[in-house]
């Protein structure tokens, strides 16, 4: 009896094992599905996969333009990263670290340039072609794409934040249109006219604090080369001035601070002011009010000390690409003058080619026409505040987002508390 039971069990077990082995063998011999590897496909044209931060429009058109211009040498396929900033960073690094060689070129946000460089996952830009790559690019963009004076990514677009407003909202709020506006004046004016000041939230809190601290004469993070031990300038008089401005903003009740539906609120009836990137003019969410959209320079911390937050994206080949030279050719096409003109037209981003920007002129506020807006952007690029540079910048984001948001939680102790939290996080620990 027992022997029969044992035999039956043994037979069942060996059958299950055999079936398992067979299915795993069958699954392993499946041909690799989907395009993406750099092998020959569709008659021998290599496909270059381009992993890049999402944009409201235009990426597919840019890829198509460069594929056509390549004349059969390569084909660019675009893949967008997630919308959330932290998710973008994780997705980019994990994808490159995974070891699959299916990503050939990446769009790297300028805030993450130092971190991606430290990972060793980006392909080295050949020094022989470096001069070509920085030729005709704005200084600010090249600086943002370099680490220790070494070019890490090829500058693609780089733009400042501006103060958008609708119609005559600035005049109604009593804001001077012939000189720069301070945050205090903006908050007071908005409160007086019962209008709202929306702030775009894609790293909105970090760029706001960065601009405030820089405007007050401090530096949010310096000593980038110190690795885990940079100098954070939050617990300083500049940091405390920044906190007082945010506190006044919250007390006046003119807005919720950086929020996900800033654009919708701005386009709604009570919306009057919006602090956000200069590319928002072409954003579909603002299409309804496109006619009455006007721009002013970013509000300052102290009077007559302009400093708008700057941000952008650079392109780089990956280290694991099967054909880095081909990827670099594609990047050169994507940053060529024609492609940059298409970029400016479809996405509204500011190209890094100086020949397309024109000379910087002294501008006054309340620019209405598109030409005036270009001058505003050029001026802001020269006086703007770049993002903090560190290979652990994401920890700084976390510290600031946790400590300074919501704006109603900011008080005089916030800078000191977030300084401690940021030092803990950047130092590699738990908060």
């Amino acid at each position, binding site marked *: 009896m027992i022997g029969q039971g044992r035999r039956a069990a043994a037979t069942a077990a060996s059958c299950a094992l055999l079936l398992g082995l067979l299915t795993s063998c069958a699954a392993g011999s499946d041909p690799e599905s989907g395009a993406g590897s750099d092998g020959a496909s569709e008659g021998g044209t290599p496909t270059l996969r381009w992993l890049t931060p999402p944009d409201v429009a235009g990426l597919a058109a840019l890829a198509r333009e460069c594929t056509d211009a390549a004349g059969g040498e390569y084909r660019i396929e675009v893949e967008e990263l997630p919308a959330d900033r*932290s998710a973008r*960073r*994780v997705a980019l*690094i994990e994808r490159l670290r995974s070891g699959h060689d299916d990503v050939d070129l990446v769009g790297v946000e300028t805030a993450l340039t130092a*971190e991606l460089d*430290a*990972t*060793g996952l980006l392909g080295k830009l050949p020094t022989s072609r470096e001069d070509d790559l920085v030729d005709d690019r704005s200084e600010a963009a090249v600086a943002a794409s370099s680490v220790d004076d070494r070019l890490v990514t090829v500058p693609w677009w780089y733009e400042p934040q501006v103060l958008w407003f609708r119609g005559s909202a600035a005049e109604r709020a009593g804001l001077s249109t012939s000189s720069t506006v301070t945050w205090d004046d903006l908050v007071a004016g908005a409160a007086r006219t019962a209008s709202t000041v929306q702030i775009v939230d894609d790293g909105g809190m970090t760029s706001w604090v960065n601009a405030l601290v820089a405007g007050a004469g401090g530096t949010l993070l310096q000593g980038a080369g110190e690795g*885990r031990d940079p100098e954070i300038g939050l617990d300083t008089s500049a940091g405390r001035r920044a906190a007082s401005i945010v506190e006044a903003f919250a007390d006046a009740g003119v807005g919720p601070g950086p929020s996900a539906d800033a654009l919708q609120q701005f386009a709604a009836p009570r919306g009057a002011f919006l602090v956000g990137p200069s590319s928002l003019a072409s954003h579909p969410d603002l299409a309804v009010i496109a006619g009455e959209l006007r721009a002013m320079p970013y509000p300052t911390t102290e009077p007559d000390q302009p400093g708008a937050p700057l941000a952008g994206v650079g392109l780089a080949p990956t280290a694991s690409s099967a054909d880095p030279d081909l990827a670099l050719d594609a990047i050169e096409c994507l940053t060529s003058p024609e492609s940059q003109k298409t970029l400016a037209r479809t996405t509204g981003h500011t190209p890094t080619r100086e020949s397309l920007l024109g000379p910087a002129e002294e501008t006054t506020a309340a620019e209405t026409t598109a030409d005036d807006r270009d001058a505003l952007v050029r001026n802001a690029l020269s006086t703007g505040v770049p993002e903090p540079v560190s*290979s*652990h910048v*994401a*920890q700084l984001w*976390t510290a600031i987002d*946790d400590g300074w948001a919501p704006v109603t939680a900011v008080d005089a102790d916030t800078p000191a508390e977030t300084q401690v939290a940021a030092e*803990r*996080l950047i*130092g*590699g*620990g*738990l*908060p």
Partner: protein
Amino acid sequence: MSARLAYRASATPPVVVDARRPSRRLDLLLVVPGLLLLAALVLVPLGRVVQLSLLDASTGASRPFVGLDNYTSVLTSSTWWTAVGTGLIIAVSVVMVQLVLALLLATSLWHVSVLWKPARFLALLPAGLLAVVGAEAGRAAVDDGFIASWFHLGEAGALQSLLGVVIGETWRTTGLVLVMLHWGLTRVPRNLLDAAAADGASPWQRWRRVVLPSLAPVLAAAAAFRALDAWRMLEGPLLVHERAEGATTPSVVVHETAFGALETGAAAAAAVVLVLLTLMLAGLLLGLMKLVARR
């Protein structure tokens, strides 16, 4: 029959030699490969995590050795200890609620035994759901579902969502405790109950003096099993979207540090500390079970 008589008669038990039984050495030879595989599957990842916890491992290509720095930062982190506190509170409250509920249900079903089969089926049905489904149902109920409307709860905060998650988990797994306790109740010695009834004990006294003591080992086992499960809960608290002080469990802190901040060195150290804390908790519960069994 005769073998049993022989057993009682002799002083030492007879050694039964079965020609079909393989020798002890062969036993070991057959078992050792499996044991080695098991050890490898457990010890190799654990060893890798310990190694990682001694390095400054983040997104950078270089991973310098930093010794116990990661452990220092974990043990001095207020977020970590708050999460441990929250985890303990969740474990204790889930265990208490589930034990009381399941005990009430099991006792009622023990008396009305005809309902046991359908009740057992209904109770085990939620346990067939994925943990994340139960937790999400609980969280949604508390955030803007029926619980929010019944009790007129205000705006959902992180702690409220965590409470919802715990409610969802409790609902999902109470059936398992119910089955365990019902089994324990069926094992209560009938003759003791009859003797107590004959001695004139009231139902409450019978419950306290006969049923509960014989049920104690099963209760302790159920408590240990549920406590460890609730302590390591990850899927549920991950659904709590807003970050807030005191609204995470240690598992979530490890997950966020490893896959959100990509600080793998610090996360590995936190994971090792979590394993040690869990071993301590398990040891405590085991001691409790032994204590109950001895009484």
